[in-house]
């Protein structure tokens, strides 16, 4: 399974996603503002909760160093997310082997959600390559368009779209037996 992107996708600070940039911030304020989204991004990218914790923690170390060098740096979600993303791909590139994470990646949000469907989606998401999981996260959970995804990561809109299509097809296949039973 291909789950590692080449280094050329690791880009510099991104333009803002949603969320205002912060100035004169403390690390605690930045974590309060962005921590949950960053962790969720890392969780889906890495499909491993412990690895996601490491990535977020390391990102904050790097962020603190950046702020130490340039106290006036303007920190947006995109800025920190880029650091998290680079940490995630570094972890994937190093192929740090971890024990299969038994903890779920997703939880039920709406009353229509079922535990059976959650388990199927959880397993199907884990089985996707990282770059497809990432596009699913950005499209579905961050609400970005393919054009925005392409712009942020320096890939073509077709590449962004095809990653999503492959992921969507796999998820549909995983869900179809469930649907037929529902």
């Amino acid at each position, binding site marked *: 399974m291909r789950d590692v992107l080449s280094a050329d996708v690791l880009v510099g600070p991104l333009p803002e996603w949603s969320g205002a940039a912060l100035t004169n911030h403390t690390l605690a304020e930045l974590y*309060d503002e962005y921590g949950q989204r960053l962790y969720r991004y890392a969780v889906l990218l890495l499909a491993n909760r412990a690895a996601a914790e490491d990535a977020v923690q390391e990102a904050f170390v790097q962020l603190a160093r950046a702020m130490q060098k340039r106290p006036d740096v303007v920190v947006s979600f995109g800025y920190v997310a880029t650091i998290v993303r680079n940490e995630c791909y570094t972890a994937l590139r190093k192929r740090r082997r971890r024990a299969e994470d038994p903890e779920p990646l997703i939880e039920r949000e709406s009353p*229509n959600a079922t535990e059976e469907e959650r388990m199927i989606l959880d397993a199907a998401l884990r089985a996707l390559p990282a770059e497809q999981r990432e596009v699913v996260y950005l499209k*579905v959970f961050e609400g970005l368009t393919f054009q925005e995804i392409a712009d942020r990561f320096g890939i073509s809109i077709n590449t962004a779209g095809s990653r999503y299509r492959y992921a969507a097809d796999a998820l*549909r296949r995983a*869900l179809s037996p469930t649907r037929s039973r529902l």
Partner: protein
Amino acid sequence: MNDEELEATLRRYRLVDPPADLGDSAIAAAEARTRSYGHGWGAAAAAAVLALWFAAHAASWEPQGDPARDAEVAFVADILGGGEDALRYAELAVPRREPDVDLATRVEEPW
């Protein structure tokens, strides 16, 4: 199932929340490693300053004239018959003397 239906299905779920202590541990790690990073840079900066000092002063020894050696070179060149070739040979033959350096005094000198 089309894309809209798939996305609606996915949005019935949410990605898990971070553990409650992740913020504290991330901030503690950042603060601790930033401190050590700063100390590391301090040591590196001190080493760089020291290296620059030695480089600057080692270079400054070179062009300073040594009248005694110049006289020796001229003497040897004369013995060798004089001329440019003799002078070049004499320059090679007569060793350079390193000046006595009082480190404490040198540190006080302006750059």
